[in-house]
């Protein structure tokens, strides 16, 4: 976040930069509008809706992790409670005949997440770090388990269903077709994203960053870090609740799975893989993780393993996430020295892809071994029989050979990178 918005702090922003800033947002909005016209099948609409919800959820999580430095293992609690609040509200609107149309329901979800955050947040945010992480884990388990006990509110493990089409209409939209729901989600996605972006540029947002960097020092510039964390927690809860409310509208059901550890783990995955240091990081992460989650399950039964591997790789080699990787290149682009790195990238692609193929082949071969010939591994149109020694040899060659060759090319990249960075430093684009 910090670096991304530094330029915005300039008093007199150059007109070009202003234009670019609004241009990015406008492009995003146009893409959201056009997307369903290009891919119009029900399945892709559902996927887009899911991605939209995941983006709001991941951005809300980043208010905690990226902006305030709070690692939560129980963020889905607010998402879930938002979902339940929205479902109950929708049912109440229908049964009491209140004149509240569907597009306002996500706000109810947000309030659901917010109210719980306000209640629980004060004690939770007393501490940061590991203690906060552990309390969030405990609270998450507690709420998820309680949701199965408090049946009248949470409907047991079956959850609460609702019918979004029964609500009063707005502009004649029934919200029956998925397309209309998609636009509703897109609308709230834009609203929430703008709001969360704006939040990062308020005094509270900046002080949250200060609390993340150095909670002790913050006390000596007049701020109570506990209060700052509490506010951040409430905002995160509110936007998570909006995401939950959107999910409730999209699926017309809220159940205990919304609240659980898996949902909390997924949002952590998405946010971290995308990158917590930049505002757009979680957006990338949410798109990628949701896409993988939907797509990988069709191709492999061990998709969790790939998730784990990707996650470990990011933690170890690129703690800034994908956004961090991309933004590393910005000073080089500005200095015009990126071109000197690209050839070594191109060289590295081949052995790296070979290594990746080797790993995939190894994993899939082991996973499918019990099925034998009936279930071949299909890589780039080549079918490998998991039972045959040839497959094993191919996998071994790809992994071992790929690794050694790839390592050479990676070193080459490192050298080229150093040279390019020196150029960028000389030209004043890199410190």
């Amino acid at each position, binding site marked *: 976040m910090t670096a991304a918005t530094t330029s915005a702090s300039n008093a007199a922003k150059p007109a070009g930069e202003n234009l670019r800033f609004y241009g990015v947002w406008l492009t995003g909005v146009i893409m959201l509008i056009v997307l369903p016209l290009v891919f119009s099948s029900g399945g892709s609409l559902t996927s887009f809706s899911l991605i939209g919800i995941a983006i709001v959820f991941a951005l809300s999580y980043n208010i905690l992790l990226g902006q305030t430095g709070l690692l939560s293992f129980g963020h889905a609690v607010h998402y879930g409670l938002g979902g339940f609040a929205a479902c109950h509200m929708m049912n109440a609107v229908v049964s009491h005949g209140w004149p509240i149309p569907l597009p306002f329901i996500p706000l109810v979800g947000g309030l659901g997440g917010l109210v719980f955050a306000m209640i629980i947040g004060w004690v939770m945010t007393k501490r940061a770090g590991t203690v906060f992480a552990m309390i969030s884990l405990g609270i998450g388990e507690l709420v998820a388990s309680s949701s199965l*006990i408090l049946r009248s509110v949470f409907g047991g493990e079956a959850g609460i269903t609702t019918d979004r089409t029964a609500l009063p209409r707005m502009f004649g939209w029934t919200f029956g077709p998925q397309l209309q729901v998609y636009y509703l989600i897109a609308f709230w996605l834009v609203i929430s994203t703008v709001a969360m972006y704006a939040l990062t540029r308020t005094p509270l947002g900046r002080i949250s960053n200060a609390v993340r960097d150095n909670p002790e020092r913050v006390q000596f510039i007049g701020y109570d870090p506990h209060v700052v964390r509490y506010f951040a927690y409430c905002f995160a809860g509110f936007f998570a609740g909006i995401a939950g409310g959107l999910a409730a509208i999209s699926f017309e059901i809220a159940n205990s799975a919304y609240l659980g550890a898996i949902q909390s783990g997924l949002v952590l995955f998405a946010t*971290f893989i995308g990158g917590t240091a930049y505002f757009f990081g979680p957006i990338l992460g949410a798109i990628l993780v949701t896409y993988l989650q939907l797509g990988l399950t069709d191709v492999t039964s061990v998709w*969790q393993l790939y998730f784990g591997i990707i996650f470990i790789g990011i933690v170890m080699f690129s703690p800034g996430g994908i956004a961090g990787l991309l933004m590393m290149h910005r000073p080089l682009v500005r200095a015009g020295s990126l071109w000197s790195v690209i050839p070594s990238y191109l060289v590295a692609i081949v052995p790296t892809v070979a290594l990746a193929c080797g790993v995939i082949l190894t994993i899939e071969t082991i996973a499918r071994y019990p099925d034998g010939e009936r279930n071949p591994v299909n890589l780039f149109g080549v079918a490998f029989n998991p039972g045959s020694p040839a497959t094993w040899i191919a996998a071994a060659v790809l992994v071992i050979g790929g690794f050694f060759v790839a390592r050479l090319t990676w070193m080459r990249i490192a050298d080229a990178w150093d040279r390019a960075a020196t150029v960028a430093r000389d030209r004043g684009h890199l410190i």
Partner: protein
Amino acid sequence: MVAGATRPRIFHECTVLELIVISTLNGVLFGMLLFLLSSGLTVIFSMMGVLNFAHASFYMLGAFFGFQLTKWIGFWPALVVAPLLVGAIGMAVERYGLRNTHKHGHVAELLLTFGLAFAIEEIVSMIWGRSPLDYRVPALLDFPAFTVFSTNYPAYKIFMLAVSVAIFVALLIVLKRTRVGLIVQAALTHPHMVAHLGHNVGRVFMVVFGVGSALAGLAGVIAGPALVTQSDMAASLGPILFVVIVFGGLGSLPGAFIASLVIGLVQTFAVALNGSLASAFGPLDPSAGPSALADIWNVTIAQVAPIVPYLLLVIILIVRPMGLMGTRES
């Protein structure tokens, strides 16, 4: 669901005493199993400051290695070999993973082990499948050790208890009374000084992590036959381990010991109790219909037994953030 079901009062005095004795025994046994599991986690945290999310996964690896090796070389050799294997894996994780992540701070280390937990579960189920394995108690210990009020106590459970206590004592001695313990503790607080005194700090950390993992592996080999050996065993036991070590005070071995006992006993007695608000204060007016209040009113202590530890965790962290015996906050 039968709202406010009246529970038949069939327990007379004698069975109450019986229930208390048996619950205490069960509570201690379960508590010691928890300690067996959390000791390694505590050792790693107290030495390295790393909260190892994958600890329960190492425990699972121990169980599966134990199962496989028992098939090949018998239970007793497996009891030695499997923890060594798990320890070796732990050392590799430290050497090639955590060491590189260390510079990014403890949160990054925590996240690394979080990802690892995911990967290990999937690898295990890939190799051994997802169904429970037929991992049995060794014939040598497959008999009832003693009988209390006509309830048998299997010798194997007593064996588990003995191992837990032995590990507790051994760890205390090693950490507090030996030179190795001193070096390890000094390496945590003053890594550079210890390095200048001629000790390889990196190797110390690697060994500590390996030992912690091996302890988890040992717990796996031993608990595998007593509980279910299955690819979701890590996920189902993982969270409670964190409750134990946070409750006891992060990094405190005696704390973990006491917390294990407390949680074991509390959970067991919660199951043994039949009370609910409805039985204490009389049923709610049924005409009020189902509501959250009615749910809370009618829920029995036994029903909520497994979530009691989490409640304890939240309460202790609010009241005493360093835990029972902890010395530092995070």
